[in-house]
């Protein structure tokens, strides 16, 4: 456990070095916050409740969604890509640690940094416009649990795509396409419940809505406790499926690793 905790700490210290980057990213977050708040305010102008959600809830949804997307950092994909391309991956395999756990700890380090540097300031700033607190303590706890599962799903998807870099070196913008898909189909900007019923029916069978929409609707109290537990069960299922896929793929790829350069 110790080396992994150390990795988390190193990542934290590293990111605290770049103060200018920090201010810039904070400013970008505030711009996002502004836009989504006024976008939804314009949409809800003169409208009471749409799909069981009122304006206050929707604004909270968008703020928390912004926070989640700023802390759900999955760099594992680009890490693997970079290391395979340069051949550094060999050095990582020599180390007496599980390399994927190490990449996971690196990402967790970034997540912790983002909670301090981005999530917290944005949360405080959002009090200017709304009351972003969760409906109840139970909702908060369920939200936190569900968010952790969401992160695991996103991380595993990213890691699986990353594994392909061992074989193909470059895949062009596959990672970017994945990010767009997640952003739209997960309901991180516009919740899926506003989409046509047929689209919703399809998306229920895909992992995307279990990454953003589920924890967020728990947070704003749109999901009942029962529905929340049911959703989290599906999340666990997706984590297991992706973990299984990841494990199979990893074992297969590790049998034969080609290291670039010398």
């Amino acid at each position, binding site marked *: 456990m110790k080396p992994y905790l150390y990795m988390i700490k190193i990542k934290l210290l590293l990111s605290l070095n770049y103060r200018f980057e920090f201010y810039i990213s904070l400013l970008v977050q505030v*711009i996002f916050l502004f836009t989504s708040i006024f976008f939804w305010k*314009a949409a809800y102008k*003169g*409208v009471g409740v749409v799909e069981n959600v009122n304006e206050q809830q929707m604004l909270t949804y968008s703020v928390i969604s912004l926070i989640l997307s700023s802390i759900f950092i999955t760099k594992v994909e680009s890490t693997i890509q970079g290391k395979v391309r340069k051949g550094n991956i060999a050095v990582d395999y020599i180390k007496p640690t599980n390399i994927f756990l190490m990449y996971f700890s690196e990402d967790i380090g970034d997540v912790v940094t983002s909670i301090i540097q981005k999530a917290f300031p944005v949360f405080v700033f959002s009090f200017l416009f709304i009351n972003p607190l969760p409906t109840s303590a139970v909702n908060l706890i369920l939200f936190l649990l569900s968010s952790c599962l969401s992160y695991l799903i996103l991380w595993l998807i990213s890691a699986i795509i990353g594994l392909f870099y061992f074989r193909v070196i470059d895949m062009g913008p596959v990672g970017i396409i994945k990010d*767009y898909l997640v952003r739209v189909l997960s309901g991180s*900007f516009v919740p899926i419940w506003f989409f046509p019923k047929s689209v919703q029916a399809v998306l229920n069978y895909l992992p995307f809505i279990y990454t953003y929409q589920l924890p967020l609707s728990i947070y704003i109290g749109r999901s009942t406790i029962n529905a929340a537990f049911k959703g989290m069960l599906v999340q666990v299922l997706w984590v297991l499926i992706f973990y299984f896929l990841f494990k199979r793929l990893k074992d297969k790829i590790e049998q034969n690793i080609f290291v670039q350069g010398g």
Partner: protein
Amino acid sequence: MKTFMRYISMAKVFLKINIQCGLEYPAYLISWLISNPLQFFFGIITIKVVVEQFHPLGGWEFPQIAFMYGLGILSHGLSVIFFIQTWYMDYLVTNGEFDRLLVRPLNVFFQFCFMDFNFIGITDFIPGFIIFIYGCIASHFPVTILNLVKLLLVVTGATLLRGAIYTLTGSLAFWTKRSGSLRSIHLSLFSYTTQYPLNIFPKLIQNLFTFILPLGFISYFPSSEFFNKDTGYKIFGNLSVWAFIIGVGFYVLSMAVFKLGLRRYESAGS
């Protein structure tokens, strides 16, 4: 006149080389052709969903928003084609890449403008064009010679305005050595001020994007004039012409700042 002709012929050579570079990896181009349009189509779909579920956003119907959205992406695509080199100016400064431009017997700004012609930008332009055409048809935009001239003015002005702001923030690297991270700020500002009607924002922000950083002229004000929308601003004269004037004005300003910054340029160590 002779120098002018020489510059024209040089520009042709630069363009030719850059297009050849861009076409060297067709698979790369095609992969971007798949991924880049996605973000714009997703963006417009989410707006459509919201407008249908609620009501016209800030008084704008969906086809009109599509028109504005498409118009904004047209200039975005063009600015990505022509001004991509301003996105990595801090790299050029810290690595001493300007040395190469300075020793040649040509205007540095001219060389800088033509050093990178980003063919990939066309993958931004195409989806913009599709959305724009859809917006034109769906909103029954009257296609007359006058309107086409106005659109040409708007797109030219907006492209120059975007390029000018890229150049201005890029030129900061002459003083600060780092400017890359500012890119995320102006990219998000550009997309939010051109995709949604500005009147959904508070008056203070509208003033900011009208008078101080006139991003509203990229697509919001010109579109509002085409559709006779009340923006709450009484601006003298034609808004499309204003978009052009502002674009050219900002571009001249950015050129001056670039020249000023170049004096501070001190090459790289080793």
